[in-house]
């Protein structure tokens, strides 16, 4: 029974939210130093929801490993300086224990 009554609720939400943009530009990351670099480099290959999805459980070393893989294996054209900025941003806003962006 409880499952049946949820259906109209879902439909109602669809009607209310249906006008909202659902393309990847709807993804909002936390403002802060390094955000522009994240937006310009990470989004070359993938939508930025990958970052939010993989939070907040990676410590700085884990984010470093992830970004390093993107550069060394996947070919992301990120300089060492920008890599440091990006890792810093990810650790501050999406690191272990961080609050997800609203």
């Amino acid at each position, binding site marked *: 029974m*409880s*499952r049946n009554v*949820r259906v109209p*609720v*879902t439909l109602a*939400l*669809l009607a209310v*939210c*249906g*006008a*909202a*943009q*659902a*393309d*990847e*530009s*709807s*993804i909002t990351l936390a403002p802060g130093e390094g955000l522009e670099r994240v937006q310009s480099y990470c989004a*070359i*290959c*993938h*939508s930025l*929801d*990958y*970052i*939010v*999805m*993989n*939070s*907040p*459980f*990676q410590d700085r070393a*884990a984010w470093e490993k*992830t970004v390093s893989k993107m550069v060394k*294996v*996947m*070919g*992301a*054209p990120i300089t060492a300086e920008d890599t440091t900025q990006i890792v810093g941003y990810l650790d501050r806003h*999406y690191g272990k224990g961080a609050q*997800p*962006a609203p």
Partner: protein
Amino acid sequence: MDRRKFLLGSSSTVAAGLLLPRLGVAGAAASGLPDGTIASSALDTLPGKRPLIRRTFRPPNFETPVELFGEAFTPNDAFYVRWHSGVPELALADWRLRVAGPVVQKPREYTHAELLRRFKRHEVAAVNQCSGNRRGLFAPHVPGVQWGYGAMGNAVWGGVRLKDVLEDAGLAPGALEVVANGADAPMLTGPDFVKSLPMWKALDADTLLAFEMNGAPLSTWNGFPARIVAPGWTATYWIKAVVDLTVTDQAFEGFWMKTAYRVPKGMFGASGFESQDTEQNSPITSIKVNTLIVGPAPGATLAAGRHAEVMGIAWDGGSGIRRVEVSLDGGASWREAKLGRELGRYSWRQWRYDFKPKATGPVTVLARAVARDGATQPETLVHNPAGYHHNVVQRADYHVA
């Protein structure tokens, strides 16, 4: 390249979405996911699909809500979507399958029509499950696509036997692996998503070059016009939009074989893929026995003194399901659930369990499957770095009122 057009899951291809109601069926079923995953996921509709749980826009990774697993076969428009890079959109008239390699006697190309005309049609019912299904439920969490329970589906796959195609092209002695490549390409200079199969698996009578799922042509999202079907093995081997088969006499060393999709050696038994085993690790191969409680959704209220029915599905890597057991006392005692019809050893098996909850208050249902090969599910997670083979005995909490 000219016949490759890519769907990128941009505004032109993704219709309006909806934030997942936190306490809705999908949300409740996926408790245990990282907070960021819950915040960034939403029900969203890809063209030709019904609303699925969007984990990422680009490449598109969308999983099936648990409540859509109530049928024996997963409807094509409810089937999950998983890509490593852009989704290739191929025209059937231009599509060719190249079969070549150092141990192929008559390298050649086939058109779709030639494959259909030349080879006998074959069908197999099989679960297609992403290696990382349930990765999001790992504790502690590991990076990757944070899937809940829905990166899988069950379908009847139709096509031709891979064996027939390979033998038509002629296998020379020394054939070791068949390397399958799809039309998808990496975004930058990263490794192309290419996977190999050992000869025994490639030549298995149930391994297909499939054109159809559930009687309809594959959708672009699920690998049009042709994909490998490797029943019993995780979906990483089921290369979509396949265009090239290379038979080699050496172990294929691409990134997605040699480095990714690996499990620690011995943690999950023998891989059955010796040419890819190393001292430290093995390729993930066979699906581990598993169960999913489909309904009622965890968190639902059951009526005290009234008949209640828990239903679900169980599957493994192809030995088949011997029985499913349910416990209402935290695992102290187990009773057998009633199995549905056998639909093939690679298919999942539906099950149901009837009981009458007496006392009001919380009740927890545990479910576990036992496969015909004797394997069953672990009580605690077998943690591994890449988050594969999550098949812990599932618990669903209900409230009796």
